[in-house]
C-alpha cells in the first residue's frame, strides 16, 4: 500500500483511453463501475474536446456482483458495437473489474464480430498511465499488423529510391493529454516536408485502424515520444525491419540532430545544413545582450522522461543555465534520465512522490523551476519562478495558439516560456530595489508574492530547522545585515554556501567577513 496525496500518472486504463480517444473509428468497452467515468472530463475539460471519448463503461454495481456480470459485459459490448460501429474494438477492465475476473476480452472475442478485437490486459495494481498507453498502442499495432508479418519482406529504409518517390515516414507517439502533441506534430511534419520527406501516418493522434494497417507503407518510424511509442517502434523493427529514430527534436541542437538522424537513416543527403541554424530565433535571442543575465541561472527540472531530458540539454547548452536538479516520474525512462543527470553532475531523482520533489527543489535553491503543474505550485509556495514543460497538465497547458515544444517554433516557445518568468522575477527585484517606501503605502503587488517578506520567512523557518542539524551555527548581526543586501534570487544559495563554508572551516559564528570569505571560496 502506498500513501498518495497526489499522483503524476493515472491508472493504466486511462492510458488506454488516451489512445482510444486520440484515434478514429475505435471504440473501447471498459468493464468498470460508474465512478470511473470521471476520466471523460480529462478529455472534455482539459483538452476541451467537443467529442466524448469513445468509451462505454459497463457500470456494474454492487447488486450485479452476485449475479452475472459477464452478461452485463456482453450486453454493453453488443450495444456499443451496434451504436458506434467501430472498425476495431478495444476491450478491457479497470482496477475493480480486474478483481472479479470476467475476462471481458475473451468474452468479446466469443461474440462473433468480424472486426479486430484487442484484448487489453493492463494490470491496474502495478502499472500506470503511460505504460497503459504504450501497451495499448502496441497491442493495437500488433493486432492489426500481425497477419502481415509473414507476407512482408523486411523494409529497407532506402526503398524510396527504387520506388521513385519521396521518402515516407510515420510519426508515432502523439496522443491526447500528451504535452503539446497537437502542435508538435504540425511542426515536425513541416520540418520533414521542407526536407522533402512525406508523412505516411501520424498515430495514434488522428489515426484510424486503417492507418495503422498502412504503417508499413513508410520507410522508417519517427519515435516522437518514447513513453508511448517505443514498444510499438521496437515491434515494427523486429517484425518488419523498420528503423526508428532516437532523437527527440526539442531544442535547436536536438532538432538539427534529429534531422540528421532521419537523413542518415533514409540515406537522403542533407543539403541545407547551414540554413538550419537560423530557422529559430532562440539562438539569437539567447545571444542577445539582454540575455547575458541568464548565464549560470540555477534551474531545477522535473517531468516526464522525454521532456525532462530535453529540457536539461536546452537549459545547459542553449540558454547557458546551470542545471542543479533533474528528475522524472517515468520509471520506464529512469535509465536515460540517470545518464543525463550524470553528465550534468547532479543526482537524478526518480520518484512518484511530489513531496520528495518539493524537498529536493528546496534544497537545490534554484532560480527557475521547469516541471509539471505540481512543480509550478510547489515553486509558487517557495517563491521561485516556474515554467511547465510536461504532463500532467491543466487546461492552461492546452493553449489556443500554436505552441509546440519541438522544432524551430518549439524552441521559440521554450525561450519565451522559460525566460518570461525569470524576467518577471528580475522585474520584481528591480522594482523592489528602486522603489521607495513612502510612495508605496499600499504595498507593491507582485506576481511572485511579497518576495522580500516571504523570502525572509523562508530563511527564518529554514533556520529554525537547520540550527539543530548544523550544530548551532549562528549568524551575527553583521552577517545577517550583509545577507539582506544580497539580491533575493541568489540569497538562498549564498546563505547555504556560507553555512557550508562555516562548517567546513569550523567557524561557529557567521559575520559579514565570513560571507565574503565564503563567496571567494566558492567563486
Amino acid at each position, binding site marked *: *500500500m*502506498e*500513501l*498518495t*496525496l*497526489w*499522483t503524476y*500518472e*493515472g*491508472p493504466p*486504463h*486511462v492510458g488506454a483511453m488516451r489512445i482510444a480517444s486520440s484515434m478514429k473509428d475505435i471504440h473501447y468497452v471498459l468493464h468498470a*463501475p*460508474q*465512478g*470511473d*467515468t*470521471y*476520466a*471523460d*472530463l*480529462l478529455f*472534455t*475539460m482539459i483538452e*476541451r*474536446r*467537443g*467529442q*466524448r471519448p469513445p468509451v*462505454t*463503461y*459497463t*457500470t*456494474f*454495481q*454492487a447488486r*450485479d*456482483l452476485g449475479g452475472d456480470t459477464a452478461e452485463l459485459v456482453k450486453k*454493453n459490448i453488443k*450495444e456499443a458495437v451496434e*451504436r458506434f460501429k467501430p472498425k476495431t474494438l478495444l476491450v478491457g477492465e*479497470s*482496477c*475493480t473489474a480486474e*478483481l*472479479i475476473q470476467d475476462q471481458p476480452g475473451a468474452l468479446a472475442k466469443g461474440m462473433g464480430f468480424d472486426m479486430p478485437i484487442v484484448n487489453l490486459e493492463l*494490470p*491496474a*495494481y*502495478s502499472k*500506470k498511465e503511460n505504460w497503459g498507453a504504450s501497451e495499448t498502442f502496441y497491442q493495437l499495432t500488433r493486432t492489426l499488423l500481425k497477419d502481415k508479418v509473414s507476407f512482408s519482406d523486411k523494409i529497407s529504409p532506402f526503398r524510396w529510391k527504387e520506388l521513385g518517390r519521396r521518402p515516407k515516414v510515420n510519426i508515432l507517439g502523439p496522443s491526447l493529454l500528451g504535452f503539446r502533441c497537437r502542435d508538435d506534430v504540425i511542426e515536425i511534419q513541416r520540418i520533414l516536408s521542407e526536407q522533402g520527406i512525406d508523412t505516411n501516418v501520424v498515430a495514434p493522434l488522428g489515426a484510424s485502424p486503417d492507418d495503422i494497417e498502412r504503417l508499413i507503407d513508410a520507410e522508417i518510424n519517427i519515435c516522437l515520444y518514447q513513453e508511448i511509442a517505443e514498444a510499438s517502434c521496437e515491434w515494427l523493427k523486429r517484425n518488419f525491419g523498420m528503423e526508428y529514430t532516437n532523437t527527440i527534436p526539442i531544442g535547436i541542437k536536438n532538432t538539427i540532430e534529429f534531422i540528421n538522424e532521419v537523413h542518415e537513416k533514409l540515406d537522403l543527403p542533407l543539403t541545407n545544413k547551414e540554413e538550419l541554424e537560423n530557422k529559430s530565433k532562440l539562438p539569437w535571442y539567447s545571444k542577445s545582450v539582454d540575455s547575458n543575465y541568464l548565464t549560470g541561472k540555477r534551474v531545477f527540472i522535473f517531468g516526464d522522461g522525454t521532456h525532462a531530458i530535453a529540457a536539461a540539454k536546452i537549459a545547459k547548452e542553449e540558454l547557458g543555465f546551470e542545471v542543479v536538479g533533474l528528475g522524472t516520474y517515468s520509471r520506464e525512462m529512469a535509465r536515460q534520465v540517470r545518464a543525463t543527470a550524470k553528465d550534468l553532475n547532479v543526482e537524478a531523482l526518480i520518484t512518484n512522490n511530489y513531496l520528495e520533489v518539493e524537498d529536493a527543489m528546496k534544497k537545490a535553491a534554484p532560480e527557475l523551476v521547469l516541471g509539471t*503543474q*505540481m512543480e509550478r*505550485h510547489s515553486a509558487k509556495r517557495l517563491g521561485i519562478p516556474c515554467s511547465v514543460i510536461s504532463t500532467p497538465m491543466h487546461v492552461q497547458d492546452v493553449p489556443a495558439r500554436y505552441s509546440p515544444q519541438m522544432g524551430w517554433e518549439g524552441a521559440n516557445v521554450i525561450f519565451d516560456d522559460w525566460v518570461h518568468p525569470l524576467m518577471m522575477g528580475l522585474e520584481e527585484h528591480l522594482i523592489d530595489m528602486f522603489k521607495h517606501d513612502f510612495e508605496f503605502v499600499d504595498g507593491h503587488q507582485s506576481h511572485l508574492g511579497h518576495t522580500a517578506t516571504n523570502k525572509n520567512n523562508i530563511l527564518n523557518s529554514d533556520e529554525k530547522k537547520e540550527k539543530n542539524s548544523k550544530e548551532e551555527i549562528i549568524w551575527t548581526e553583521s552577517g545577517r545585515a550583509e545577507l539582506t543586501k544580497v539580491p533575493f534570487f541568489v540569497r538562498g544559495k549564498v546563505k547555504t554556501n556560507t553555512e557550508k563554508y562555516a562548517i567546513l572551516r569550523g567557524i561557529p559564528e557567521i559575520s559579514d567577513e565570513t560571507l565574503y570569505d565564503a563567496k571567494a571560496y566558492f567563486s
Partner: protein
Amino acid sequence: MSKVEFKKETGPREVFCGLTSIVWLHRRMPDAFFLVVGSRTCAHLIQSAAGVMIFAEPRFGTAILEEKDLAGLADAHEELDRVVNDLIERRPEIKTLFLVGSCPSEVIKLDLATVAEKLNKRFLGQVRFVNYSGSGIETTFTQGEDGALKALIPLMESSNEEKLLLVGTLANNVEDRFKKIFRNLGISNIESFPPRQSTELPKIGKNTKVLLTQPYLSDTVRDLKHRGCDIISAPFPLGIEGSTQWFLAAAKAFKIGELKVHEIISPLIKRAKLALESHKEILKGKRLFLLPESQLEISLARFLHNECEMDLIEVGTPYLNKDLMKEEINLLPDNTKIVEGQHVEKQLDRVRNSNPDLVVCGMGLANPLEAEGISTKWSIEMVFSPIHGIDQAADLAGLFSKPLKRNQILTSKTLVTH
C-alpha cells in the same frame, strides 16, 4: 402528489461516485482527514475532481492497493495500519480520520470497520476513526456525504435539549444567514451537521428537530430517526418558494406562527424577486433537460419551473427517495417526467431529439453537447456554490442564465471544435 411521470432506466452511466463528496466534506471539517482505501484510479479521480484544490490542501489522500495487498487480506490490514501510522505521525493535527471504502476495497472485502475499531483503541483520545463507503458500486456522487454523516451518528452524544439541527453541508456564509434568520424567528438553539469542526458534533435526541438542507441524505435521516430525532418534512431551501416553505415548516415545528415568519422573510422575498427578474427574463420559456448526477435535480427543476418559468423536458436523478422528496414532487408541475437511473446513450438520444435550450449535466458531457450547439450547465457547480436560501435565489438562477446569456452574446452556430 401531482401527476408526475416516473420512469426507471438502467445502463451505462456518466456520473461521479461517492468519493467525490470528499471534495467538499474536507473543506467543511478542516480538522478531519479522508483516507480512501482504493486504487490509483480512486486517487486520480479525486485529484481530477478537486482541480486546483489539490495544490492547496492535502487533507485527503489514498492508500493505494498494490499487487501484494491483493495476495492476502491479513497483509492488507497490516499495510493499512502502517499507512495510517505514517499519516498520523506526519499530520498530528488530524482529529478525525475517515477511512473511506472504494470499489476495489469493497470487492476484496477489506473490513474497514474492524480496522477503524482497532485504530480507535490505539489512538484513543488523539484521533477518532470512522469508516464508510464512497464506492461507485454502491454510491453516486452526493451519496458519499450521506455515508460520511451516517458514520458520524454513533459518535454523537444524546441530549433531550430542544434544538433545530440543520443537516447537510452548507456554505459557511449561507449557514450564517440561516442562523440569523432563525434567531430572528425566535429559534435560538441551532446546530449544524456536519459541524465546522469534526470534534464538535451536536448532541441529539428526542427533542432534536431535523431540518434537511440537502436532499441526498436518506441513510442519515433513517439513523437520526432511530436516535429519536424528529424529521421536519419540507421541500429544500432552494429558491424563494422552497426556502419559504422550509422556514415555515421549521417554524411550525417550533410552534411559531406563520405571520411571524412572513414578517421576517417578506423583505427578503421582495428583494429576492427583484434580483431574480433579470435572470427570469433570460430563462422564461426556455426548455430544460436535467441529466442525473447530484440528486439536487428535482429541487432545481421545481425552482427553475416555478420561479423562473422554464419548461421541463426531463428530470433525471441518479436515485429517488420518494418519501424524502414528497414535498418537492408536490410542487412540480403536472406531467413532469422524472427518470431515475441512467442509460447515458439513450438519454443523450432523448436530449438531442427534444431540442433543449439548456442541459444540466456532468463535466464529461458538457463540452460535447456545446459542440452540438446545446447550452449546458455543469451540475458539479451546484454542490460548490452558495445556492441555498432566499438571498441566494438570484445567484442560483444566475448559474443557469449565465450560459444562456453567453450563448446570446457569442455566435450561436455550431462550431468546429479543435
